[in-house]
């Protein structure tokens, strides 16, 4: 298996893990960061609907 694209000239065991680790780490960081933002957006919406802003009641 030293020919073909996925064989990477016999270095597949080094090249693909390098790209794989990069993809997994960057995707995991992106998803956890997004989840944290979505969670705080949802919590803030709940809090603001629980307590109507004074400005809106009495402009």
């Amino acid at each position: 298996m030293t020919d073909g694209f996925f064989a990477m000239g016999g270095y597949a065991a080094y090249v693909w893990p390098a790209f794989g680790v990069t993809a997994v780490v960057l995707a995991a960081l992106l998803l956890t960061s997004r989840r944290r933002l979505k969670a705080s957006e949802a919590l803030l919406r709940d809090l603001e609907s629980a307590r109507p802003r004074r400005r809106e009641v009495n402009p």
Partner: protein
Amino acid sequence: MSWWHRLASPTRFMSYSAWVLPIAGWLAAGCIGVGLALGLFASPADYQQGETVRIMYVHVPAAWMALFCYSAMAASSAGYLIWKQPLAELATRATAPVGACFTAIALVSGSLWGQPMWGTWWVWDARLTSALVLFFLYLGYMALAEAFDDPTRGGKAASILALVGFVNVPIVKFSVDWWNTLHQPASVVKLDGPAIDPAMLVPLLLMAAGFTFYAVAVVILRLRAMVLERKIQALQRQLAEAR
């Protein structure tokens, strides 16, 4: 108000970052997509390194980002310690995990290249050791920032660590020139121009641009979350007092 005071206002940040975020995200996806296509398919194998040269397309941009994120953290820490900008302190916190991830990618991908090319996963040469120190500085910053019950004290202590740790950045960068390292010296950022063929330089620079836009997008995501979390804490205090 000077321009950086305006940029550092949380309200203004929430409005302009909502515009910048999708732009940075799409630019990141585009640059990384084209960079990967060129790096994996269009660019040639190296005459010495063979196909392992393709590891460079993630390793080198990740290592650049490791230094860039830390430099940004040192700058925002200075902004916090000198001008007391609270958003600057949050920006340092938001950048730290991004820099730590890029440093980890640089270390792991470098190791995966070192084994077939140098015959070893790891050596304690100046470049590899200082890059490992950089990784621990990121971890130390994150641990210290969260170590206090009072976030202001944690922020101040961690900002000082981020600023002092900046001495390591030029050590990482110039370690290959100052000491005899197994790691090769710079071949792109050089005074006499890059010593690398355009067929390899173009995908490398595209990946670097993509990683930069990715970092901008993720820092904005995290910073927006932190600004909202502070707002939530303030609202919860108000609700508790009203009861």
